[in-house]
């Protein structure tokens, strides 16, 4: 029982991080109807910027404090993500208003390649470290109740906590602010939103900025866990089954979907894996997503698609 609980808790914490990545997809899709394939590249780009700025800026300014260095690097990386958002709007999206979804999807694929290439050209392809003081050693709880206790990874716990706070803030932003409502209006219909005076271009910059900040937070957390390197771009792929499961337009869906995928893949690897050769957790998540696509294409919380014929 103790081992099952450990796996379950590990899955929930991993799931929270998947939610964070999935949130990037949901935000942009909600606001612009674009399925942003560049989200993974944005995570990599933001993490590379943070890791390198945390080294370069103290060297330029002669700073000794790691806290100060990390704070300035985080702000600088955030500013860079703003520039990226502005450039994406100026150079890509502005020219694609009212285009087919597939066209916009292809455009984001292009953005992904540009970000990966430019990111590794500017910042290098080495493995970089982000040290924000996350605890690395595990902690044991309930040693009296379970033999050997329950192992909790402190780093995962802190990461899940940060992800949860960010998710809550974003949910509030979308539901309770004027800008949030404007973002949702744009998502529903570009032309209708424009006709009632919502500035489409500004809204797109805002939403790509917010997605950039989400990518930065995800990049910092994953970068601190794994080291900053190209593989971070593939981490975003873990968000795909999450959004399929939870629904592309739902923030709560991203959270619940993340948790289901996190728990599902860990339990499947541990309990089903040994029977069928192991190494199944990645494809298990996609299998689960596939089943949902067959029976509930809009996901758990997505808007039901009704077409008049």
């Amino acid at each position, binding site marked *: 029982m103790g081992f099952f609980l450990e796996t379950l808790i590990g899955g929930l914490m991993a799931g929270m991080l998947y939610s964070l990545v999935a949130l990037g997809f949901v935000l942009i899709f909600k606001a612009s109807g674009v399925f942003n394939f560049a989200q993974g590249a944005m995570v990599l780009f933001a993490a590379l910027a943070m890791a390198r700025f945390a080294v370069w800026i103290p060297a330029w300014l002669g700073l000794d404090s790691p806290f100060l260095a990390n704070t300035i690097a985080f702000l600088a990386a955030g500013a860079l993500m703003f520039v990226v958002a502005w450039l994406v709007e100026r150079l890509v999206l502005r020219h694609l208003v009212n285009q087919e979804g597939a066209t916009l999807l292809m455009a984001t694929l292009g953005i992904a390649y540009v970000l990966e290439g430019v990111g590794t050209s500017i910042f290098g*392809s080495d493995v970089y470290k982000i040290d924000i003081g996350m605890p*690395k050693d595990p902690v044991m709880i309930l040693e009296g109740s379970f033999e050997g206790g329950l192992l909790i990874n402190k780093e995962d716990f802190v990461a899940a906590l940060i992800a949860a706070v960010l998710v809550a803030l974003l949910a509030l932003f979308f539901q309770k602010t004027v800008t949030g409502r404007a973002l949702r209006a744009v998502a529903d219909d570009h032309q209708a939103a424009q006709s009632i005076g919502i500035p489409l271009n500004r809204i797109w910059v805002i939403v790509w900025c917010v997605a950039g900040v989400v990518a930065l937070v995800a990049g910092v957390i994953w970068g601190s866990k794994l080291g900053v*390197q190209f593989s971070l771009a*593939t981490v975003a792929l873990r968000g795909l089954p999450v959004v399929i499961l939870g629904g592309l337009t739902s923030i709560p869906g991203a959270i619940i979907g993340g948790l289901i995928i996190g728990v599902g893949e860990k339990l499947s690897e541990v309990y089903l894996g040994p029977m069928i050769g192991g190494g199944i*957790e*990645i494809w298990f998540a996609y299998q689960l997503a596939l089943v949902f696509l067959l029976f509930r294409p809009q996901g758990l919380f997505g808007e039901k698609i009704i077409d008049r014929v």
Partner: protein
Amino acid sequence: MKLRKLVLTALGTAVVLSSLAAAPAALAQVKEQFFPVLVYRTGAYAANGSQWANGYVDYLKLVNAKGGINGVKISFEECETAYATDRGVECYERLKGKNGGATVFQPLSTGVTFALTEKAPVDKIPLITAGYGRSESQNGAVFTWNFPLLGTYWVGADVAIQHIAKKEGGVAKLKGKKIALVYHDSPYGKEPIPVLQELGKTYGFDVQLLPVAHPGVEQKATWLQIRQQKPDYVLLWGWGVMNSTALREAQSTGYPRDKMIGIWWAGAEPDVKDVAEGAKGYSALTLQHGAEPNSRVVKDMLEQVYAKGQGTGPKAEVGQVLYMRGLLSAMLGVEGVRKAQERFGKGKVMTGEQVRWGLENLNLDQKTLDSMGFAGVMRPVQTSCLDHMGSAWVRVHTWNGSKWEFSSDWYQADEKNLRPMVMLASSKYAEEKKLKPRTPEECKK
């Protein structure tokens, strides 16, 4: 309209002139020994692949700086594979006939090696796979164009078990032990499994197999299983980010790092430097060499290549583990050409077929290696027509929190265990592919 015409004419003229200017250079290249370089400087394994590529290319530059191979200069061209088998094959096809023909291919990927094993005999180009590739390709009677020089994964698996036995106080103490293999779920990661299972039967230890999907960033479930099953040792058969992730997970699940032993592709600086103290005590096998910043070949490199501003990568990485691996791999290819020249004509450009003869008759004794600047870096290598590996020496090095240090004496893989497996697997391959193995008499030709 006139302006457009003018620009087009100017461009056309420039293209014609530049191709005319390039023509003598292309003709000159025919006189050079062409080394295609399959690399991965991008993608999930870039951090590790780049260091290997820098060492490889730098060594070719160093040979040129010293006058070439008996006066024959080396030309080379990189092709990016991103560690993908399809792109590796594409690079092979693109480069095999270029600049007078490829000397040798070194794909740095077991997957690509599997794909090229059937192509190389057709194109008559040798494949050097130093420390990777198909383990049974040691048998040159069947795998006539593959050269897994210095060691195979079967050598690695055998030595890893020898090392564990030594730590435990003898092979008899292995009985009842549990050894987990955390491996990259790819042809590379699966290579050691038959040897471990065979040795497990012989010595009475249990082998637990734990595959990790590419690229290896998610290992939580794997390490929870390790925590539950409590193996006595964990063998790590990873590459790139998988290695550092495994060490981080070991730390976060409390598995002792001094009970972990990695293969030589899981024992370089990019694997541990960011884990730093968290990886302290972790050991890995070496393909003879470790980090060798004080070796003479590295000093030569710094003086004759980097001091002139011709170095490929960062100076600080010269002499690191994967840099040395690339450098040694290039050296083996160059020495194959040098040996071939002894038979087919010094100062001449060698064909792939001639280089194969050179690689099959390689005899790098300690004196030669020392004179080349490899003293303390590696032991002698002697190949033959039937043995394409040439050497099976391994050491173990351990991460002390800031650098790798050798922590064992030399081990040699037990041929008594491995040879029958090599023969069996290679015969099976020959049977499947309807190949007639070469006889010792045919080898003399």
